[in-house]
């Protein structure tokens, strides 16, 4: 065997695995397949990519803000929509990672791309905390509505705790937690570059970074959900007893899904802090905890595409409504949730996608 042939033989399994993962971009657990779907998706991404050319930096910064939240929404989609565990406390991981990003960056600074290290550590902290809570919940055989009660309690406890950290004694290194007023002054994400760091303030540059991250996370989740792991999550949602009696350690799968949801909520939290250089305990409060459930329910919790598109639309709508008052906007969100539950329980966007699929003869899954 020549050297080239030997190298080829070594690379073949890796190529085969890569092909297998790419083939999972389409599958039974995600809507949308075939050239028409991917052309439409590419058009949406292209439109999002050219949008800053026709807008100003401030408006693009607001659009970046919408994208920040989509990771938490997709994570909740995995935990609730796919695995069947309604978490009312994704904001616990969001807030924890958001604060962690602030504490780490205030202490280690932003040189040499250290803000990215802070981002990774914060996401890791969110995931680790979710795995810990998930371990006690799922191995403690907590299920159904009690998962919502436990997770809501966790986020409210964290909010209450952070709200009383106003004194100077509540500091980690040089980072003051600042109680109810929240932390500020942390640096945004920075990219080391020749001739000086590129600072990703909440404008066009950050928007493009976030857009790329959304696309990567979305495609990654599609592959994961169509992999055997995703199949088992759906099986647990449909019939946990049967799934266990097929030989699956369902508690482990539930815990891992919850950890993934925590990591994605943590990513949203750290990016939120980097975006606005600001985070307060209210980010873990009741209102904040309830909103992701509205986004995901309205979009469609059982499909990651519907979750993503629905969340962006609802968040944008919510922001537009807050011009008229935040309480007013919350009432509309509540009404939207009631409408969804009563009229389109699968989610507004998911239902529309299913109908479009039928019309064009490509019924999704």
């Amino acid at each position, binding site marked *: 065997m020549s050297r080239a042939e030997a190298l080829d033989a070594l690379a073949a399994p890796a190529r085969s695995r890569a092909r297998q993962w790419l083939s999972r971009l389409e599958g*039974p657990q995600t809507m949308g397949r075939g050239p028409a779907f991917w052309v439409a998706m590419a058009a949406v991404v292209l439109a999002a990519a050219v949008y800053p050319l026709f807008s100003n930096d401030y408006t693009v910064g607001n659009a970046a803000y919408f994208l920040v939240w989509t990771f938490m929404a997709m994570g909740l989609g995995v935990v609730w929509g796919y695995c069947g565990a309604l978490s009312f406390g994704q904001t616990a991981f969001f807030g924890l990672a958001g604060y962690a990003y602030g504490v780490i960056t205030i202490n280690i600074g932003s040189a040499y791309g250290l803000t990215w290290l802070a981002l990774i550590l914060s996401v890791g902290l969110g995931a680790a905390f979710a795995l810990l809570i998930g371990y006690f919940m799922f191995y403690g055989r907590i299920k159904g509505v009690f998962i919502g009660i436990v997770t809501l309690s966790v986020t409210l406890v964290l909010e209450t705790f952070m709200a009383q950290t106003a004194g100077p004694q509540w500091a980690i290194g040089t980072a003051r937690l600042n109680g109810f007023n929240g932390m500020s002054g942390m640096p945004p994400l920075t990219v080391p570059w020749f001739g000086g760091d590129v600072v990703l303030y909440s404008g066009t540059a950050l928007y493009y970074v976030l857009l790329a991250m959304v696309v990567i996370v979305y495609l990654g989740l599609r592959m994961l959900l169509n992999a055997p792991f995703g199949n*088992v999550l*759906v099986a647990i949602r449909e*019939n946990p007893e049967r799934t266990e009696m*097929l030989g699956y350690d369902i508690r482990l799968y539930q815990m891992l899904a919850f950890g993934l949801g925590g990591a994605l909520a943590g990513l949203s939290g750290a990016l939120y802090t980097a975006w606005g250089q600001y985070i307060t305990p209210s980010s873990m409060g009741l209102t904040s905890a309830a909103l992701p459930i509205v986004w995901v329910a309205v979009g469609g919790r059982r499909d990651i595409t519907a979750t993503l598109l629905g969340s962006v639309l609802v968040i944008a709508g919510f922001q537009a409504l807050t011009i008229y008052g935040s309480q007013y906007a919350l009432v509309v969100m509540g009404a939207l949730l009631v409408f969804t539950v009563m009229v389109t329980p699968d989610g507004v966007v998911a239902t529309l996608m299913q109908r479009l699929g039928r019309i064009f003869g490509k019924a999704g899954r």
Partner: protein
Amino acid sequence: MTQILQVSKLNKRFGGVTVARDIDFALDEGAMHCLIGPNGAGKSSFFRLLLGEHAPDSGTITFRGRDITPLRSFQRIREGISVKFQVPGIFKALSVRQNLQIAFQHHLHGASLTETVRRVLEFTSLTAEAATPAGVLSHGQQQWLEIGMAVGVEPRLLLLDEPTAGMSPDETRKTGEMLHDLNARGITILAVEHDMAFVQQIAHSVTVLHMGAIFAQGSIDQITAHPGVQEIYLGAADE
């Protein structure tokens, strides 16, 4: 003959109710055995004890020479036990093919997974329904699908809880043929069943449970001729 399952001095109480009372039970490899008994005799509880859904108060369960009493349900399944529930335990929102893929993907991948799914679809006469959501199948087809899910990975012991409940006579007969076929392939079968005609069709031997304890054991002829069994179960069923 080798014993695949041995249950020794198994006891379980829920408050004041005893669902398993000093049960000593053994099952030969390759057997087709039925558990019968009146309602509340402890048949389903015995299954749940075998599956690890309930932990016994005392006693041991040995499967293929290994004490599985401390193992959790999914670990017992991985040891080679499989189960079909009384109410079809399928994933109703998923297609028939997906149901089978999920059932087998733990053990099989790629081409062997695809081939096994095809083979089981054929065995269960569900090839034409492969893309159909499992929830819209007829009751009998749902039962067959679950049997297919339970046997695709060729377990050593198949537990069946009333496999013909709600089936038409034709479906019942076909299910009996399926079980004979599986048994011929080396799968030991232990079934809880009420339908005595079906028990006669499939069982090599029968155990009668009554009030959580073994009341009688023997061939189907011995059991049907047993006066005590007639009184507690067969006679009661006629009333």
